């Protein structure tokens, strides 16, 4: 429980930094930090599906936000801090490689997948009814498929709404975007 508390405090600090910092790019980076903290929290709570989705969506949003803000203001200085920069880079590389080594060593043998956790939890019913070892996927797409249908409808409606809102400006640009719909 301690690690989750630490992670939550970390997320809160990142959020406070995000709203109190002056320039836009730092705020975007702080938002990204809080998102990745949430991803690690999911991982610590043993929800790998959510962690993967959170990670990927966070990367996508971060790329779009950075792409949208990178040209606007750039009070960026690389001179005079080469020692700290190099030190931080080396520490990050060491942590990354060490953790990657540990994680790769703890993977199961190639060819013997067997999700032990789900086999323990599902025991009988899900395996007999669905034959899917990923319990989250089985619940998402089979037992509670109505929820997923509503979710997909919401996403679809959001995208179509944004397309309809942005259509005129898209048409004005020389390379034709979003011609129909």
């Amino acid at each position, binding site marked *: 429980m301690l690690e989750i508390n630490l992670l939550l405090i970390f997320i809160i600090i990142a959020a406070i930094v995000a709203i109190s910092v002056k320039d836009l790019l730092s705020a975007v980076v702080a938002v990204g930090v809080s998102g990745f903290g949430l991803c690690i929290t999911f991982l610590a709570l043993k929800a790998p*599906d959510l962690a993967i989705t959170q990670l990927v969506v966070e990367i996508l949003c971060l790329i779009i936000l950075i792409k949208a803000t990178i*040209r606007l203001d*750039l009070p960026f200085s*690389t001179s005079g801090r080469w020692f700290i920069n190099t030190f931080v880079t080396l520490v990050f590389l060491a942590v990354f490689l060490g953790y990657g080594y540990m994680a790769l060593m703890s993977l199961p043998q190639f060819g013997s997948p067997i999700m032990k956790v789900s086999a323990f939890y599902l025991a009988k019913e899900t395996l007999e009814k669905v034959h899917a070892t990923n319990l989250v996927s089985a619940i998402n797409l*089979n037992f509670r498929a109505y929820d997923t*249908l509503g979710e997909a409808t919401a996403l679809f409606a959001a*995208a179509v709404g944004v397309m309809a809102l942005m259509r005129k400006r898209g048409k004005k640009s020389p390379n034709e975007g979003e011609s129909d719909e």
Partner: protein
Amino acid sequence: MNNNSGMSLIVKTTTRLLVGFILLYGIYIVLHGHISPGGGFAGGFIIALSYILFMLAFGKDEILKRIPASSIPFLESLGALMFLTIAVLGFFGGYFFSNWLPKGITFKLLSAGTIPISNIALALLEVSLGLFGIFLVLILLKFTPPKNGETNEKVK
């Protein structure tokens, strides 16, 4: 290489080597959604991220050449309609969303009835959403570079 859109040669070469593997990993996550963690949502976004990497490295002309912007609504509608069709086809098994396909053997790729197909449908939806995000950035949020020349290199 010669055109100035996109990043440097190192980034382009690395991207050319990596993009296929990222795409393959996304497809793997989608297809194994019923066996291992992942599924349509995560895998679809990974596939979209491979295209985003391509876009960041090569500039927007290359990706607009490969994926026309008019294909995004098509992909999105295809995903949503596919998911709905799976749901309606459940009436073969008796009720809406019933898992009527043969279940197969546990831990095999072709098992679990309709779940892999639903994963693929959701992945199509997510891929189109991710690509739509790119085109939103590329087309709608168009930035004019500042008039006094370069921005990044000047600070040094």
